[in-house]
């Protein structure tokens, strides 16, 4: 316990702390595991295994036998030459693959590699400090990629583990449980100041450009062929959420979230028209922006889009926004100025009754009428026939829809493959497909019949989650919850241009599977999806169990609140809140609030320590003493009090004379107590002795019951005879 060494020369850790260091590395690296490539993970696993091997082979060193088994961490050291070789080869490997990863991921690789290798080199205490700080930095980096509530709590837990490790270096005898308890209490005490700072401390804009995460794109793509969206629909990932802020949510069948319009068809696939129009837009309209003409009632809502690493954003038709980071396109879609690589919150005001593009430019008309002649001859012929029968464009479209409705067309995820993506084959032969098949063939038919038409992709509908309903919404009819739109809500539909109406939405799916448009997926479809996708527990099964579904909705609601309030707490929001609370002179009041929170935190801390100190002062006796005192009180009740001046040995002699049938037990009790009280023992021995002491006390108290209380005089006599005995100790 007391040793005379200079601590900074060599760094020792007790055995369980060394294993904690190893475990810490394991969990820190695992938090980033999703971002690392497989070969890097293999290398890290190798490093960890090597360390574990070296640790388990290390026998207890002779440094300080009192501390259990202390391990000199140089046991985990490799020869510096091998380490250098490994480091250099690792760096080269990372540099080579940096191009394919992107800068950010390459940096993350480098960090984790350095972290794993550093553990081999911990000689002094400052190495240990550097290693711990690097570990915490890794945790922070993990939060760049994922920020939902569950993951954040996981990272918090890992932070506690990391801090416990640092703590253990200073309180080596402490058990892990006590150390982590101390850390958790300290974190709780610091949470008050942390939350105040979070709310009040001014939010700054980025200082410099940093490499962004560059993951694979998810969600809708701007190249669509039949069957694409059916693939996308197998995913149950969240695409975005929408909050109507207490206003009534529009009906499901009107929730067509537009993402992009696909106007170019080359016979096989639909692509966006991004050349001429956008070029014009960029040069001329960059300063002005596209201002759609609006009319009718407006709906305001907030959308929180999940990172998709693409620029598309989602809004109900004729959307307007005041957000400078959004771009309104000529085709009434919205895009973000930068790629959506983080959660994006934006505010939209939509006018669902406003018409889209009452006038159509010649260029646009040409593009929207272009079909590749000869790609689907049968459909072309049918279009000519239909046009002859129904000269009115709207009636024509109704006729096509009627065909879909009345004939045996199937809406299924498992559509048979089309040769060359031939729409003819779909329309006349297979007659089974998903939304793209129907929208594609409908658009083709309309174009062939001379009506400008285009395919629009986006999402349809959304799951209403009432669990996140704020209690503050007084209006009963208003729905305070939010809508969650998942990838399986992805949809493709068609728009035809009518004179006087502009672009008019026609959804062929409504004719084939009306339930899809009015309520969402039918159970048959869900069942199909659960068979096809690789989810562990399919959504279909979850939706069947009411309680499980409620649980899922509740979790989703919590996640939503987390996303909205914590992750979405932007500078603007902060400004609004502070202005509301403080009004004028914000900087001074902000500073005052922070200072107050600091002092309050310190005051609470002091209070906490006073209370725990008061608690401590009551427990001045050791547990062994407490047990012994119990026995003494039991004896005192029977009339045998131990005088203050008597030692334990003397008292046991008294008992030996007065209560001979107790004496054996009591003498043993006394000796065990003395051992415990005056000698140092290890934890196990202490426990064993305490158990023995407790048992003896029980025996003595049991035997005492048979003894009647001695009278007062007898007690006096006995004490006098005792005193006489101890006059001549030498006899």
């Amino acid at each position, binding site marked *: 316990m007391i040793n005379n060494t200079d601590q900074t020369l060599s760094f020792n850790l007790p055995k369980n702390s060394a294993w904690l260091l190893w475990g810490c590395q394991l969990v820190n690296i695992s938090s980033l595991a999703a971002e690392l490539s497989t070969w890097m993970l293999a290398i890290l696993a190798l490093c960890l295994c090597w360390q574990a091997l070296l640790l388990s082979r290390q026998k207890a060193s002779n440094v300080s036998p009192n501390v259990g088994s202390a391990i000199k961490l140089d046991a985990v050291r490799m020869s510096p030459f091998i380490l250098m070789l490994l480091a250099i080869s690792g760096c080269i490997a990372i540099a080579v693959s940096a191009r394919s990863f992107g800068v950010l991921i390459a940096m993350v690789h480098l960090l984790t590699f350095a972290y794993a290798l550093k553990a081999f080199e911990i000689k002094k205490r*400052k190495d240990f400090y550097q290693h711990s700080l690097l570990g915490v930095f890794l945790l922070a980096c993990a939060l760049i990629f994922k920020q939902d509530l569950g993951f954040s709590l996981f990272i918090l837990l890992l932070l506690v583990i990391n801090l416990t490790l640092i703590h253990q270096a200073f*309180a080596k005898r402490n058990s892990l449980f006590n150390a982590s308890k101390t850390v958790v209490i300290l974190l709780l005490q610091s949470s008050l100041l942390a*939350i105040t700072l*979070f709310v009040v401390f001014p939010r700054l804009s980025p*200082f410099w450009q940093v490499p962004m995460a560059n993951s694979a794109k998810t969600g809708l793509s701007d190249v669509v062929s039949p069957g694409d969206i059916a693939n996308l629909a197998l995913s149950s990932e969240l695409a975005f959420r929408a909050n109507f802020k207490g206003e009534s949510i529009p009906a499901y069948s009107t929730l067509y979230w537009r993402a992009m319009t696909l106007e170019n068809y080359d016979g096989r696939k639909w692509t966006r028209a991004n050349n001429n129009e956008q070029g014009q837009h960029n040069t001329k309209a960059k300063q002005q922006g596209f201002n759609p003409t609006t009319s009718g009632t407006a709906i305001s809502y907030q959308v929180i889009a999940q990172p998709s690493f693409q620029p598309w954003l989602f809004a109900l038709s004729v959307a307007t926004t005041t957000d400078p980071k959004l771009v309104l396109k000529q085709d009434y879609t919205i895009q973000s100025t930068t790629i959506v690589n983080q959660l994006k919150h934006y505010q939209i005001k939509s006018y669902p009754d406003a018409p889209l593009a009452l006038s159509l430019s010649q260029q646009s008309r040409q593009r929207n009428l272009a079909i590749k002649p000869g790609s689907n001859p049968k459909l072309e012929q049918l279009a000519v026939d239909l046009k002859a029968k129904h000269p009115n464009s709207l009636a024509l479209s109704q006729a096509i829809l009627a065909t879909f409705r009345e004939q045996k067309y199937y809406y299924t995820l498992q559509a048979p493959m089309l040769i060359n993506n031939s729409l003819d084959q779909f329309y006349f032969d297979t007659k089974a497909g998903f939304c793209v098949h129907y929208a594609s063939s409908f658009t083709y038919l309309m174009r062939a019949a001379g009506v400008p038409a285009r395919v629009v992709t986006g999402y349809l509908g959304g799951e209403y989650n009432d669990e996140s309903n704020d209690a503050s919404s007084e209006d009963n009819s208003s729905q305070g919850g939010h809508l969650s739109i998942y990838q399986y809500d992805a949809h493709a539909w068609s728009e035809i241009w009518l004179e006087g109406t502009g672009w008019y939405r026609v959804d062929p799916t409504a004719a084939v599977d009306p339930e899809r448009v009015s309520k969402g997926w039918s159970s048959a479809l869900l069942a199909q999806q659960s068979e096809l996708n690789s989810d562990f527990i399919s959504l279909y099964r979850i939706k069947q169990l009411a309680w499980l579904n409620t649980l899922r909705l509740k979790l989703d609601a919590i996640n939503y609140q987390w996303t909205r309030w914590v*992750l979405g707490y932007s500078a603007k929001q902060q400004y609004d809140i502070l202005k509301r609370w403080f009004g004028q002179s914000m900087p001074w009041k902000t500073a005052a609030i922070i200072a107050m929170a600091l002092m309050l935190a310190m005051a609470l801390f002091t209070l906490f320590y006073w209370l725990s100190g008061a608690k401590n002062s009551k427990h001045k006796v050791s547990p062994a003493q407490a047990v012994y005192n119990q026995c003494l009180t039991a004896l005192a009740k029977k009339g045998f009090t131990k005088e203050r001046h008597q030692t334990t040995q003397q008292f046991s002699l008294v008992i030996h004379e007065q209560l001979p049938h107790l004496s054996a037990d009591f003498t043993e009790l006394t000796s065990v107590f003395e051992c415990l009280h005056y000698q140092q023992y290890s934890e196990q021995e202490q426990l064993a002795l305490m158990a023995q002491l407790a048992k003896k006390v029980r025996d003595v108290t049991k035997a005492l019951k048979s003894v009647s209380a001695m009278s007062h005089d007898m007690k006096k006599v006995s004490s006098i005879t005792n005193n006489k005995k101890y006059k001549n100790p030498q006899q």
Partner: protein
Amino acid sequence: MAANSFKAFFHHRFDTWLKRRVPSRSHHQLSRQNIFIMPTKFGFAYLLFVFLLFLLATNYQNNIIMLMSYLLASFFISVMMHSFYNFSGLGFQSTAKHSGFAKQTINVPVTIIATKQHFDLTLSFAKQPKQLKQSKQSKQQQQKIYLEQCHAGNTEVVLPYMAKQRGTVNIGRIKIASEYSFGLFVAWAVLDFSHQITVYPQPKKINANQYRLAGQDSQNANSTNYANQSAGLDDFSELKNYVLGESRARIAWKQFARGQGRYTKHYQSQQGSLPWLKLSEMPSANLESQLSYLCYLVLEYSHSEQRFGLDLTVNGSSSASDVDKKFAPNVGFVHQNACLTALANFKQRARES
């Protein structure tokens, strides 16, 4: 040169302030009065790290990382309070005067009185002895005592002090430091117990050939006494009645067994007339060696319970200040201590004038 004087001035000012704030006592209780707390190097590195996290959060506009950096910043404050409260409340007690021999480790015991559990305590001497700085033999500049854990109750620790030279040394304050928890802050206190160590000269064994012992105060004494190498209680002189309290080893058991009563044996050793240990008679030319020889002789004589006197006058002429340089023949522990102290504090007359 200027830097040195500036440093000296600064130290002087600091010392006067320290003397007022933490005066010397035999029992110190740590409280807000005498605890200093500062972040360590790791503490500053930690703050830099938190700032780095803040930068990361701002650049990525990531609220959760920002929350984490705020949490770690306020954690820093919490750890400061935690370190302070781990340290405060400790009591320290130590006696002021200690003694020992030169070139030996002198132990200065300090008692720690704790009411609760304290962690990670390091005790050392605050002043670096100037001699140690020059020596390159020992890697460690200072011996530090490290306590991992201090339970409630009294704990005694011993601070070793390596005394190089004889004399009376004020070893200054004792520095107690703690880096619990997390190593972010170091809380320390420099306590003054007015420790004073009297270092006696290192006893050097004297060779029999070199030595002549003057038998008497007069000049022409030439006794045949040799240095007594072994404690001699040689000759049996008489039996006396047993007095209660006398050592049992002295009891004449034969007589007791025969039933003749209890007697104790008394011995006599051959002694010449009262010997004087004189500084001027020590064989060496070096003053320190002479004192060392004297020290050895004082110890030997005291150990064998012989009477001796000590004469530290240089020229043999008496003067007013000779009163503390001549010790009348006596025996006993107090006499031994007085002689040793005189040896320790002996200053050559030439130096004084």
